Structures are given as C-alpha cells and as structure tokens.
C-alpha cells in the first residue's frame, strides 16, 4: 500500500524568503508524484508532476520539486515566495490506474 507523509503541517515564512515543503512517500513499485495547491475556497489545482525522465520538475510560477528515489522524497521548493503563494499544498502519489493517495497537507503562510 502506498502512503504519503508531509512532514510539516504549517510553514510560516516572510515574503521573498525561500521555502521548502517536505514530502516523503512509501510504495513498493514505481510511482508518479504530484504537488497540488488549494487556495482558500477553491478546488485543488495541479502545481507540478513527476512521471518519468528528469528528476527535477518545475511549475510556471517558480516552484520546483525533485524526485529522490533513494530517499523516497519529493520536496517542493521556491527560492523566493510571494504573498499570493499563501495556500494549502498537498503531495500525492499514484502507482497506477490513476488512484492517488494524498498527504494531509502543508499550510504555507507568507507574511509581509
């Protein structure tokens, strides 16, 4: 069975500071990995995904995540955050057939 652990439930940072949201997973087979973002009162939106190939994946708004198979991690990073990045971030893993297992989320709060 697959599982996802998001190591920090809340991450407060100041604007323009770097941030890392940590995600570890467990699975016995090859996986697809995802980060979703949920802004207040909105649905989940895909931020970035790892399916195969390069282990470093990037989003259009400056986030990146690196798949580390040996450490079974998929941490999300951004070198300089904005107020508008305040949201809940969910890491998810999928083995096959589209079924995804989600972590419990990390609330990122960017302060001015």
């Amino acid at each position, binding site marked *: 069975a697959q599982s996802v652990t998001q190591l920090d439930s809340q991450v407060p940072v100041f604007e323009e500071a770097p941030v890392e949201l940590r995600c570890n997973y467990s699975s016995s087979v090859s996986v697809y990995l995802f980060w979703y973002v949920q802004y207040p009162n909105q649905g989940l939106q895909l931020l970035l995904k790892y399916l195969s190939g390069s282990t470093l994946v990037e989003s259009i708004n400056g986030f990146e995540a690196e798949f580390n198979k040996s450490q079974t991690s998929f941490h999300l990073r951004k070198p300089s955050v904005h107020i508008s990045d305040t949201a809940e971030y969910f890491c998810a893993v999928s083995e096959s057939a589209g*079924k995804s297992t989600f972590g419990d989320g990390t609330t990122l709060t960017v302060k001015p």
Partner: protein
Amino acid sequence: EAGVAQSPRYKIIEKRQSVAFWCNPISGHATLYWYQQILGQGPKLLIQFQNNGVVDDSQLPKDRFSAERLKGVDSTLKIQPAKLEDSAVYLCASSLEQSEQYFGPGTRLTVT
C-alpha cells in the same frame, strides 16, 4: 475548456437525513473520482469510475454511501443516512490520462 462542475457548493443537513451531490467532469474524461476531505486532512478516495464502471470502491462506506455514473458522463454521490462524521468537503475529479487529475470546487457538507 470548462472545468469539473459540482453542485451544490454548500449543504447543511441534520443527522439521519439523506443528501446527494452531483458532478459533471471535463468533456471526454473517462475516469471520474469522488474524494472525501475532512478538515485538516488530505483527500481520501471514495470511489473511482472508468466510464460507467467502478474501478475502485474499497474505501466507500457502502452501508450509507452510494455512487453512480449511469451514462459514463456525470455522476451522483449519495449519503443515506448521514452521520455527524460525514461532515467534510466532497471533491470530484476527472482525468483523461490515468495520472493527472482535475478537481472541481467541492461540496462542503455540514451534518448537525
């Protein structure tokens, strides 16, 4: 293209009452998912459809929850009778390829 549509957005009912949620996926998406998201937790898969067939309903409490996707397009999730612990956001998602999911805005259910 239009996104995943869900209705209603909010619902308040008393325990032991019944409730139904509706989802219309993105046009052409064969796979449809229903998730339950309890406050402070990540989404948990309730049921997955491929066209009008059930792929996975292992986490669906079948004594009170039911779901259908009769024509392989839109879907209905029903709870009867509702319990206090059913208070959550019910998310519908759809996918074309069995990896990346697109989520609707969710229905927030409060059971009193």
